[in-house]
Structures are given as C-alpha cells and as structure tokens.
C-alpha cells in the first residue's frame, strides 16, 4: 500500500461509526464514505452515484456479469448470450460459466490473436448474428497475466451500435492507462484496491446510473440498493486515496515502470537468448507494469522456486486448490502449447519496484534457467 493510503486507513480504523446510523457518529462515518465516493469518482471521470463499493475486484466482476445478465434477461427473456474473451480473469470467466450451468446462459468466448488481442471481427460477427439475444459484453481492459491492452473503446462502439451494455475489468488498467468514464462509454467498470496501492479486500464497480443491475448480496441495500453490507469506512477511504494518487501519478509512474520493464526484458533476453516475450511488443499495446516471458524447456514452478530462493518473487499464472500450478488459460488461448504455457513467468512491477529489483532478477536468471532446464531433462528420463 502507498503510505498515504496506510495513513488514511489507520486514522479511519480508529474512528467509531456505522455509516448507516442516523446519529452523530453515523453521520461522521457517512461523510467519510461519501467523500471517498466523490474523490474516487472524480479521479475516474465518473459521477459519485455511479460508484458501488465492493469487497474487491472479484465481487465487482461477479456483480457486473451476473447482475447485468439477470437484469437484462429479466427485461427480455431472449437475452441469454454473454460475449466475453477467452483471456478474461477467472472472476469473469467463472461467473459466466456459472450462468451457463445454472441460468441457461450461452457464453461465447471471443478468440484472441497471438498477442492476446481480442478479435473485433469475431465480436461484430457474433453481435450481428442476433443482437437481440445478447445480454452483455464483458472485455477486460488490460490482461492480468500478459499485460495485453484490449481495444475497449472499439468493443464499446460495436456493442453500443446494438444497444448492448459493456462491462470491463479494469483492475490492471487504473493507474497505468488513462481511465476516464467521461471519455469512454463503458457501462460498468471493475477496479480493485490492492492493484492501485490501496487495501486488499476492497474494490468498486462503476455503473452507469441508468443501468439496471440485480444484486448479488441482499440486505440493507447500502450501496445504491445493488450491494448490501455495512460500509467498510476505513477501506473505502483508503481506496479513494490510493486511486486518486494512482491517477495523479500515472504518467510519471507509468513512464518509470515502462523503463524498468523494458530494461528487465532486454537484459533477461540478453542472458537467455531463447526467452520469448509474450504480449504485444508496442509500448502502447501492453501494460507498463507486466513482463511476461516464456523460457523454453523449463518448468515454471521450478523457475519460481529457484527465483524465490534468490529473493525474486514472480508468478506462474494460476494454481488449483491443492496448489498445483496449471498451464495458463491465457497463453493457451493465445495459441501456445501446454509446454510453453507451463514454462512461463509473469514479472509484475509496482509503485515500490526499483532498478535494484530488476538487477536482482538479472543476476539470478541465467543460472536459474540453466538449472531448471537440467531438472526438466531429469524428469523425462
């Protein structure tokens, strides 16, 4: 967390008050929540009434996908199609899959190219085939694994032509790309606290005022009647501080991270000649904060363990409930085979990343890759 968010959260945790209470301390708490709402909205070009605070990005994605599906299908029972991409986060893919299992939805996973960019032709074809049957389109802004920036504005334009609402998971976009709801006509947008230097366990769905949404959580109706639960005053206050600062610092921070990332990629590839950079090469088409590399002939979990021992922390993608690393569905959708998908690592950079972090990776990577390759050879014996 950024220091300012920690400070804000610490102060607010010491204050008493339920924002729904009518007495003085309730009013004080409510004021903090509403000021956080205004600050967050203002940072992202939204109206305060469009901010629905949630307990994180996963809840916001679930609320958008299920809530929109239920509301749109409720208004017209023909609307059973959900169009999304094959590289979405599981917080979108899994609720979509759940709607197929339990609510009679048809989910169409739009294909992506080798860089992970969604096919707009496939989207247009799918929309045009039968626009009246589409409940919603959900397309992430920036892919969380490989950093691909999706053409969200084009997706919105296509869907808007048919009057179909668009949700975007912008968890990886806020703070790295210009995110301005006044400039882009998405109907719902997910953001998450811990990806912008705010607390874990808090996020928001920005939803256009005119859009109907069925709630996931029923109860006191605290958030615009679509999200119930006592307001988490300290968390939303810290979230607003973090989002505001991330937006203010975006340009300098992105340029700094871009420099670190490009340096990381160049130096690693100089040491490991056959390492493959995944995602688009053009700077504008990928996140400045993610470098995703495939190391042919290596197992990702061996690389992760060896780097971890050297103090370099990276990710292989997702793991099942037992902790077994799984080949990334994102890389598979981008056309990589299971072997390549299994030998890939994601290096994420954040506000506290430094040239020393990159240097530590560069120092370690050569011998680590060599050792991981030897271990794979042994395993096949």
């Amino acid at each position: 967390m950024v220091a300012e968010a920690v400070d804000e959260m610490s102060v607010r945790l010491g204050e008493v008050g339920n924002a729904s209470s009518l007495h003085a301390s309730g009013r004080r708490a409510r004021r903090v929540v509403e000021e956080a709402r205004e600050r967050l909205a203002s940072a992202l070009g939204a109206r305060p009434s469009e901010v629905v605070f949630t307990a994180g990005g996963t809840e916001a994605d679930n609320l958008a996908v299920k809530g929109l599906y239920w509301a749109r299908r409720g208004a017209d029972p023909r609307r059973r199609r959900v169009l999304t991409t094959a590289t979405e986060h599981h917080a979108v893919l899994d609720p979509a899959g759940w709607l197929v299992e339990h609510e009679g939805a048809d989910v169409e996973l739009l294909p992506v190219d080798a860089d992970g960019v969604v096919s707009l032709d496939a989207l247009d074809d799918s929309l045009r085939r039968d626009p009246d049957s589409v409940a919603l389109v959900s397309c992430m802004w920036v892919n969380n694994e490989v950093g691909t920036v999706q053409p969200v504005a084009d997706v919105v334009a296509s869907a808007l032509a048919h009057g179909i609402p668009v949700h975007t998971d912008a968890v990886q976009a806020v703070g790295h790309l210009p995110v301005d709801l006044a400039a882009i006509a998405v109907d719902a947008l997910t953001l998450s606290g811990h990806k912008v230097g705010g607390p874990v366990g808090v996020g928001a769905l920005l939803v256009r005022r005119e859009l109907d949404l069925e709630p996931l959580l029923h109860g006191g109706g605290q958030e615009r009647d679509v999200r119930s639960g006592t307001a988490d005053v300290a968390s939303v206050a810290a979230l607003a501080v973090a989002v505001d600062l991330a937006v203010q610092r975006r340009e300098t921070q992105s340029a700094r991270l871009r420099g670190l990332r490009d340096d990381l990629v160049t130096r690693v590839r100089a040491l490991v000649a056959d390492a493959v950079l995944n995602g688009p090469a053009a700077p504008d088409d990928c996140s400045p904060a993610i470098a995703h590399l495939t190391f042919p002939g290596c197992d990702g979990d061996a690389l992760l363990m060896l780097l971890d021992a050297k103090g370099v922390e990276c990710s292989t993608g997702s793991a099942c409930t037992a902790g077994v690393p799984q080949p990334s569905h994102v890389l598979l959708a981008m056309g990589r085979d299971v072997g390549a998908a299994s030998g890939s690592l994601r290096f994420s950079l954040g506000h506290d990343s430094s040239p020393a972090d990159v240097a530590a990776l560069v120092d370690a990577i050569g011998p680590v890759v060599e050792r991981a390759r030897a271990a794979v050879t042994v395993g096949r014996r």
Partner: protein
Amino acid sequence: MRVLAAMSGGVDSAVAAARAVDAGHDVTGIHLALSRHPQSYRTGARGCCTVEDAGDARRAADVIGIPFYVWDLAERFHTDVVDDFVAEYAAGRTPNPCVRCNERIKFAAVLDRALALGFDAVATGHYARLVDDPGGRELHRAADLGKDQSYVLGVLTAEQLAHALFPLGATVKADVRSEAARRGLAVAAKPDSHDVCFIADGDTAGFLRARLGARPGPVVDGESGVRLGGHDGAYAYTVGQRRGLRVEAPTADGRPRYVLDIEPVSGTVTVGPHDALAVDAIEASRPRWCGPAPDPDHATLACTVQLRAHSQPVPVRAEVAGDQLRLFLGEPVRGVAPGQSAVLYLGTRVLGSATIARTQRLASA
C-alpha cells in the same frame, strides 16, 4: 545441506522437516500432488492426497518457517504406482504400492528433480534409521519397532540412500506427536494414514473392479482339483486370504479354507487348508541392494527375511543368482504372496530386497 522435505500433511513428515531445520540444514518443504483429481481420493484428511492434506502441509511449513511449494507428480504417480498396482493384481500378484512409491516417486522422480535443482537430500517422515558406517551408509530398522518402515524402504539403492534423510528413525511415535504439539504444529493429533492412499474408501476390490471389470473364474480345491465355486475377479484375492471365498461346500474336517494360489490367465483361485499355506522356499526377482551388491554369480547370505509389512522376520539362506534371489527359509511361513517384497535383514540392518515371484510349498504339506 540444502534439504527438500517431502511433506504429506501428516504429523511425521512435519516433525521430520522441523528437525531437519534444527539440524542446521537449509530446508524447503514440498507437498507432492499425486492425484489427478485431488478432491476424489480421500474424504476427510486421513491420507496424503487431498486438498486438505496439502493445506495441512502448507500450514506446518508456515509454523516451521520454511518455503513451501506443491510439486505435481500426478502423472508419474499414476503411471508408476497406480497403473502398476492394477497391472500387478491383474497378473495374480499382491503389490505393495508404498514400496513402489518410494522406489519410483519419492526417491527417484522427486530426488532426481531435487538434485537437479540444487538440493543435496530429500527428507521424509519415514521411521527408519540411516547409519553412516566406515564401510558406507546403512539402512536400519527404526527404534520404534511398532512403526518401523524399513520394509517399504528396502527397495532403495545405496545411491538413493546417500541422498536420503530420515530424521524420525530414532524416535518413538508418541514422542513425535508430543514434539509436534510442543512445536505448535496443528497436525499433532491428526490420525495416522492407513491403507492405500489412492483408494479413497479403502475398498481395494471395488477400485480394481472399476478398472479391470468382472473377470469370473473358478475357485478350485488344491488337493482334489474339484471346482468348489466361482468368483468375479481373481484380483479380489490374496494368497493367505480366508474371507470372501464364497465356497459353500464344507471341508471334510470342518476347518476353513485359504487362498493358496492365483493363476491369472484362467483366473483360477486355488484354495486349501491352513497347513497348505506353508512355504519354505521362495524365488524373488529384481534384487536391489542397500549397499554394495553381493557377487551376482555365487553369493550366499545367511540372514533374516521379512516377507510382508508388519510381519516377523525369519532366518533365511539367500542365494544370489544373477537377477534372481533364491530364499531357503529356516522355518515355514504362511501366507507369502507373490508381488510383495522380500526384505533381507542382518540384525536391524537392511541388506536389500527383491520381489517375490514364486513360492514353493513344504514337501510334507
């Protein structure tokens, strides 16, 4: 040393890992994911293959303060242990999957990968002792004879033992549990695992039936050759087994019948009286030596042999003949099943092992 501690999620491997840390080693914990469908193997945390067990292992690593990872060995385990288990039963033998797992997974696939990744040894919670003698490293029975697992480790070679660590060998189980509690390990009171870890409900016959299908065959009297009844699959039987024979005709002397032999091609299960189970000579194949191998042409060893897990060793004269081991037992033994390990001991020391291929009944029986 850089030590890889294999952590099943049970109390033994957790304490073993903690002791490896105390001994000054640089320890990394790993849990082996052995099931292709982690939820399906065990219900509740009794075994070593469930999501819950992986979580228990992770929490133990947290408390001990070591890095922890999960290694996916599911495919190797399936091929080398589960498929082998099914094939052995189909061939009329009675395999010991723990022996196979130690031989091919823990001290082969895992050890090889560990060495390649820069580790020096693999530590497990097995109850067995390693003694470093000037003549080389020796594998011995555990101090706690009730928990001794040297039988399932008898398949390890000198090279494998050179990279093994068994920190619990000198301790009795009760002390391991109290030590776990003292260390704040939540698995201190977790029940011991039993049975075959990849058979969730303990129904081995049902597990085999699902994979091998119904394979009906006759149950035949060993003395008269008369058909006494039938069965749905010889894989449900083990030499020495008495229950589940489904033979209605009573014996002449009213005493129970036992499985004497299983012939896999015709599926014939031969039964007879208890006395007919006694064997005094055994042929075993694929000998593996825990130290230097004896001269393969004409070595004779006077030692003891243990013929199944948790049985008493008996005196034996073992003759090495190439890839075969001929065992002449000093006293007759009942219920010796092909497929099980014959582990040779000199006192508490394990000399080596081989897989029982054939038995020879007492001439007098």
